[in-house]
């Protein structure tokens, strides 16, 4: 299968993720959308790696996975802390998020 298809798919996933970040307000969903964006990058990396050979892209993708996991852990931790304090976890209701 040509590289273009992989690229198109990864671009589609990236756009879905970015669109979700822009429109959704629940932090949990936001984190999911960020995951989509990161995995779009992973897909592109692995596809290109297949094209170029070597291992660079695969290693990069592994690194990205590790980092993505870290980010989610921290994000969930903060959300739990907010939840425990009975604070709203809808970013629109957050006092200081007004630009």
């Amino acid at each position, binding site marked *: 299968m040509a590289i273009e298809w992989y690229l198109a798919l990864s671009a589609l996933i990236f756009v879905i993720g970015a669109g979700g970040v822009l429109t959704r307000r629940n932090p949990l969903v936001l*984190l999911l959308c960020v995951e989509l*964006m990161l995995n779009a990058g992973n897909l592109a990396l692995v596809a290109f790696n297949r094209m170029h050979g*070597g291992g660079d*892209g695969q290693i990069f993708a592994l690194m990205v996975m590790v980092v993505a996991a870290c980010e989610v852990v921290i994000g969930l931790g*903060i*959300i739990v802390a*907010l939840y425990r304090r009975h604070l709203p976890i809808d*970013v629109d209701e957050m006092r200081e998020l007004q630009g």
Partner: protein
Amino acid sequence: MNGAAQGASVDWAALSPLLALAGGALVVLMVGLFPGRGVRDRVVPGLALLTLAVTAGLLVWQYDTSTDLLEGALRVDGLTVTLSFVFVVAGMATVVMTWRHLDPVESPGPELYTLLLSSIGGMVVLVAAQDLVTLFLGFELLSIPLYVLCAIQLRRRGSLESGLKYLVVGSVGSATLVYGFALIYGAAGTTGFAGIAEAISGDLSSDVLLLAGLALAIVGFAFKASVAPFHQWTPDVYEGAPTPITAFMATATKAAALGVLLRFLDVALLPAAEAWAPAVAVLAAVTIVVGNVGALGQSSLKRLLAWSGVAQAGYLLAGVVVGTSLGVQATVFYLAVYLLMNMAAFAVIAARERETNLGDSVDALAGLGTSRPWLAWPMTIAMLALAGFPLTAGFIGKFKLIEASVASGYTWVGLMIVIGSMISLAYYLKVIAAMWMREAPAGAAAVAATGPRPALAGASTEAQITAPTRHTRRGTGELTVMAVLFGAATLVVGIVPQPLLDFAAKAGEAFPGLF
């Protein structure tokens, strides 16, 4: 990254500053496990300071090093060393500011310093990286601890919100960066900077894949450096985060973000300069205008400095755009100077947060000229320096940036810096006027000794657990000393800039490809 790693010799000497930071982070975490308040209040911050001092010493030792490390993944050269100094000094100042700032019940001591040291380690990796993978790892090692640091006041709503917002925005930036890197890798077929530069100087400079990747990568960096239009998070996060962490983000993170832009754009992507330079120049101009206009109406000092930081990111980008050795020097010089001026200002803000119940409002500074001249003078110098007034370090810094842009044909960017400085006078002078021309509001002073800080009051039931006795140790002596030191340094560098100019010239030497 290709080739067998086995048998590779490692230049431990050049790597030593990074190892010191990593080791220090672990030691701080382990020592923090010992019980007792003495350990938490004195030993742990002391160890953090020691780690940073050792790192600084190792950097002095490696001052003239210029070598590739770990199969070309990292490069220790003038840029790495000079910017690492900036990170280390920022880290030391942050340790001093956090020492008595955070409530011990509310925020864990050792974790805080471990996170701080890890973040500094990430910054060093970031500016040393000359491979997309290492760059990304440095970027995340810098960012992830910072998310936690922003949210470290677990019982204060603003802090948590700030951390969450920074995390979401930062992750979006990282994801954009990764996607951009993936495309660049796809176009160039390698992740090493040298390989990318080689591939581009062939026939790739107009490749759609490369240009798209480049654009996405620049957007990713722009998030971190708070370059408009990706800056909206900055005022919120700066305001919500604990003041010492804000100071750290404002100075060190900015230095790291611009340092990596310097290496990424001026080494890996230099052959494609005509593709990115005009676009980045426009970003710089927009950032200058947006930042300065945004700062105009602010009454919170942290928000004001956040917007001013956006504007200053615009000034700094001018030094990146020109793609000359002069530009690199100007950027590094301004980053060092920016550290001095901002740390002086943030030390004063933190001191007033402890002394009054007005938080970081401009009102907290009213009448400071007569009541606390030792805080008022550093703040005045810092504000004048940020505005670029002569005889302060900020003047020489802006001068170098304007010189670099005019010399490379970007006169209009130089003009934008001047116009931005004009606008900025309005809000910097407002702060100075508050200190020298207004009377102190009644009852603002000396609240610190009587009760919990107002940021906590009423925030939750848990806040009331914090016993009043704890506040007796929240003096501001070390902050005054710090403000005076950084204020004096701002002045001295403004009058005798030659040593710091030589220091910045060291960074310029790191890029032999530039002229």
